[in-house]
């Protein structure tokens, strides 16, 4: 079973990725930035495709947010 990748997937080019991500938001309102992030999540999740990996990512992203137990079915 494939697991969520934890090591550097950018092959040392992470700084360039981060710069592009920030630049993508430049000039957008807060609402539009939220929309951009939502679309990005959908595109990248589809590219990954594997539901186990996506669920693992959701759980990792939720850690420490709100008071819910992150990433379980009950979160809905």
């Amino acid at each position, binding site marked *: 079973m494939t697991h969520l*990748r*934890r*090591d*550097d*997937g*950018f092959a*040392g080019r*992470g*700084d*360039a*990725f*981060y*710069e592009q*991500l*920030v630049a993508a*938001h430049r000039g*957008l309102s*807060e609402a539009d*930035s*939220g929309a951009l*992030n939502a679309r990005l999540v959908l595109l990248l999740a589809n590219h990954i495709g594997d539901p186990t990996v996506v669920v693992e990512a959701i759980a*990792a992203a939720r*850690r*420490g947010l709100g008071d819910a137990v992150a990433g379980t079915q009950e979160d809905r």
Partner: protein
Amino acid sequence: MGTYQYRHYPYVRPPELAGKAAARRPVAIVGAGPVGLAAAIDLAQQGIASVVLDDNDVVSVGSRAICWSKRTLEIFDRLGVARRMVDKGVTWQVGRVYHGDTELYRFNLLPEGGHQMPAFINLQQYYVEEYLVDRVLEFPHLIDLRWKHAVTGVHDSGDGVVVTVETPDGTYPLQADWLIAADGAKSTVRTLLGLPFEGRTFEEKFLIVDVRMDADYPSDRRFWFQPTFDQGQSVLIHRQPDDVFRIDFQLGWDADGEVERQPERAMARVRRVVGPDVHCDYEWCSVYTFRCARLARFVHGRVVFAGDSAHVVSPFGARGGNGGLQDVDNLCWKLARVLRGEAPASLIDSYDRERTHGADENILNSGRTTTFMTPKTAVERQLRDGVLALAPFFPFARMLVNSGRLSRPCHLQGLPGFARDEDQVGGEMRPGAPCDDAPVVDAGGQSGWLLAHLGSRPTALVFVADRRDAGHIAGTAAAAGIADLAVIAITDRRLGDLPLPELVDRDGLVRGRYGGATGVTYLIRPDQHVLGRWRDWDPAVLGAAWRDCLGSGKA
């Protein structure tokens, strides 16, 4: 006041104002900071005379640039000043990054051994300048260092420059073939020539405080995002010699610099970092903002810009002073050859091409660091804080945490003037790369370092297996047609009595780093960069590569 005793260097009434005939100088250097002084020394070591003009008469006021990289120390070693700096400086190679109270990760800037110089030393700029001035004074016939000489005019006469110089005794014109403007971020020469200095200004204020204290802090570079002991965005601590610590606070754009730079207020901030019990004395402080900017061209006729006059970056990454020293390293051997008539003036254009490339790399990296450190909008902050939140759990996120990407030697691979790399020689020392160091033993049995044998002149390194090979190389080297070529034989074990200088590859690291199979030949530029490398010794190929390099300015 402070741990450092400033002394005033003597102003001397210039001969031009004492009725003596003024000789035209090969090189005038404006600015006696690290870049200007190093340039004068580098030129003097190659027999070129210069006059250095500085509007002040003391070394750097305040510690200012403190982090000197391995590459800079290798350059300083070539200039004969590194040993003193390393002995005095605080050596370090590990950076530690915290978020709040949690240590996120450490980075090691020199994980492998077999290099003479450490990854970094911290040494206050006033010491660096003092040691450079002492070295300058060892060249009384070649370097004319003039304190309290301010430049008020620059006129390019086509084949030279006329500088108007103001002194306490009046004003005089000084003629030079070339002028190096090493007069800092607020360069007078740049202003006089009316050159635009364009780039990005970052809306963030920082406070630097130097304190002397009895604290057993490590020598590591330590950086906190959102520290619990300060209300600001980040804090950076560096250890300097004399038990002086640099604490750099990110204040935010709305902070009032005039208020924050008051020593009592700054020391109250320091107190929150170090706790109530540590004895500490105030040394110096400064509030700064920064830009990332560069001149479009570093060469304007006979005026050449080097250091901060040509390019400025954010201080996180130590890319300012270290970038400036690489400018000197790149420029001086070219200028010396042009002045001696061995290369066309167009060679100086390769300085422009290579060092604007270096400046762009520094601006790119320090701009990215600043973007990470100073989020401008709500979403930028969310992204940044997201990286910090994931960093304890995900190695990839730790790689994105950016508290400064520290100065690395600039690679010139792919630029014109270097030989094509077609011979499948192993190792990472491709044409354009700055040479890696390695331990060697010389013919007299003395242990030393490879880089100490390279520099200031073109050098061929040839991996030699026996005396016959060495004899053939020595006998045919003249066919390269390079007047001042040095040829060095690298051997596995001491052969002895070679007709060439022999360096024994003590630990096999030269062979490993340079892919040194028998016969492999490197041609090294005077600034310790690989010009070309080949599987076999062929002096005609070396000569052609060297002449291509000298003529490459207009490529």
